[in-house]
């Protein structure tokens, strides 16, 4: 006769599940990228020691430079300035992209009208926008805001347009029959449906914005991460250049993992229900 045994303690299960979950998070999401960074640092160190060149500083030199800019508070001030500029430009791009992307997604003629602009916007390098804006607007917030808006809006528009076109027409019909107000349609139908596209567009736009702002700051501004990079380039201080790049990379990682991914997880929590 087979005797089926009851589990001894059912109360331990949630704790065990939490432990298993944390273990799989560490093993699956934290260890691999950490390992990559360690291997990269190791490879760089080997290369730097072999080359013995002031143009290829060791990991220790980069860490020392990083400690210096963080310790003096320069990193926070300059990264703050650059992020503020990105935020301004990105906000303008986002507002324009919402309007143009939504209209283009819903109307063929509007889509056709904006197509050349999108094609142009997607193919023109950020360097061109940076140069043109410095020439047109000189030194100031207008330069960085315009350059970032021009550089990031096309990718955002395309992303939002795809989001709008992917909305299930069945749901739109339902909203029509139940007489949802325009605001209710926007809040309960349109925005949640295009949210994944908005977030991926935001990511893409953010990375574009970073590339554009560095160029603007190199060519036409007297502070910010781009300016610091240019100053260190002029002084042939490669360790400091790498330290600024690492510092900004860490900032972007914090924004991505600490803000965007958590925001995405929260806003799309309903998807998890399908896995239950």
């Amino acid at each position: 006769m087979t005797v089926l045994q009851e589990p001894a303690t059912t109360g331990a299960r949630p704790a065990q599940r939490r432990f298993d979950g944390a273990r799989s998070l560490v093993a699956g999401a934290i260890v691999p990228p950490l390992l990559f960074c360690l291997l990269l640092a190791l490879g760089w160190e080997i290369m730097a020691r072999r080359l013995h060149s002031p143009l290829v500083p060791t990991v220790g030199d980069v860490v020392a430079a990083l400690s210096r800019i963080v310790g003096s508070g320069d990193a926070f001030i300059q990264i703050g300035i650059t992020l503020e500029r990105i935020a301004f430009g990105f906000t303008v791009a986002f507002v324009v992209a919402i309007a143009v992307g939504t209209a283009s997604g819903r109307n063929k003629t509007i889509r056709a009208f904006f197509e050349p602009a999108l094609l142009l916007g997607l193919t023109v390098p950020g360097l061109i926008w940076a140069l043109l804006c410095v020439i047109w607007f000189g030194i100031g917030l207008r330069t960085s805001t315009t350059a970032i808006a021009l550089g990031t809006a096309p990718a955002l528009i395309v992303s939002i347009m795809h989001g709008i076109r992917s909305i299930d027409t069945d749901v739109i019909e339902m909203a029509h029959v139940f007489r949802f107000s325009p605001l209710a349609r926007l809040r309960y139908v349109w925005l949640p449906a295009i949210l994944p596209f908005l977030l991926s567009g935001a990511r893409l736009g953010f990375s574009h914005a970073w590339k554009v702002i560095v160029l603007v700051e190199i060519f036409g501004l007297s502070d910010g991460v781009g300016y610091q990079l240019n100053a260190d380039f002029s002084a042939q201080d490669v360790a400091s250049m790498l330290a600024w790049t690492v510092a900004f990379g860490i900032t972007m990682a914090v924004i991505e993992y600490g803000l965007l991914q958590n925001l995405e997880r929260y806003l799309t929590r309903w998807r998890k229900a399908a896995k239950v």
Partner: protein
Amino acid sequence: MSAPLNFFHVRKSYRRPGALVPEVVFEDFSLQLAPGELVALVGRSGIGKTTLLHLAAGLDTPDRGAVRIDGQGKPRIGMVFQQPRLLDWLSAADNIRVAIDAAGTDQRRGSEMLAAVGLADYAHAYPLALSGGQRQRVALARAFAIEPAIVLLAEPFSALDELTARRLRLLLQELRQAQAPTGLLVTHSTLEAAFLADRVLVLDGPPARILETIEIDLARPRSPEDPALFAFHRRIIAALKSTEPAEPLALLEKKRDLHAVG
């Protein structure tokens, strides 16, 4: 609360992609639904049943003629689609709440209706966590929570297994006992038509016309096992058979003969 739904001399045509001339679905089509009456439309696929529902729902407009819902103010329309068409990002309760918000009716109806369809414990569940039958129950609750003057039912249970569909038909009957909006039901299930409707219209065409009207004069609540229901069911089937095109049947028989010879 219920309102009369009237179709007056409706003409509706569609131009299919690539077609030179538009296909006329309805030509001078009229139909009157009395307040509180539930009319079922049966007929071949593509005959225009769903088009009629879309015209009533305001999802489409007639080329000529008019669709009128008389009543005070702007009568509310509740609709149950073949698929539940819930907003996946909102909980069951919120799906009903936003419909009530749009209709401007009493918010308390939301929880009442969820309890009425047996989903009080699932108020905070997202649609993706619910079964197909549960989702359709939420859709039913949503349609009735707005206290509709008209309820439109577009093959509401055809995507469900027969046992669940049977339960939901009984539930729909209960909901209509509590509040009796005027109803228009499109279905391919003749038994469902006989069980739920006051009047079954067998459509033929194109253009669509009412071939036969069958009044289902059975007392409510009805039982799906009632033998009298099957008599009506047989009448609907007989009427539907007469709408079958002769040609495909003849072709089928010819094919069978050839097969027998071969």
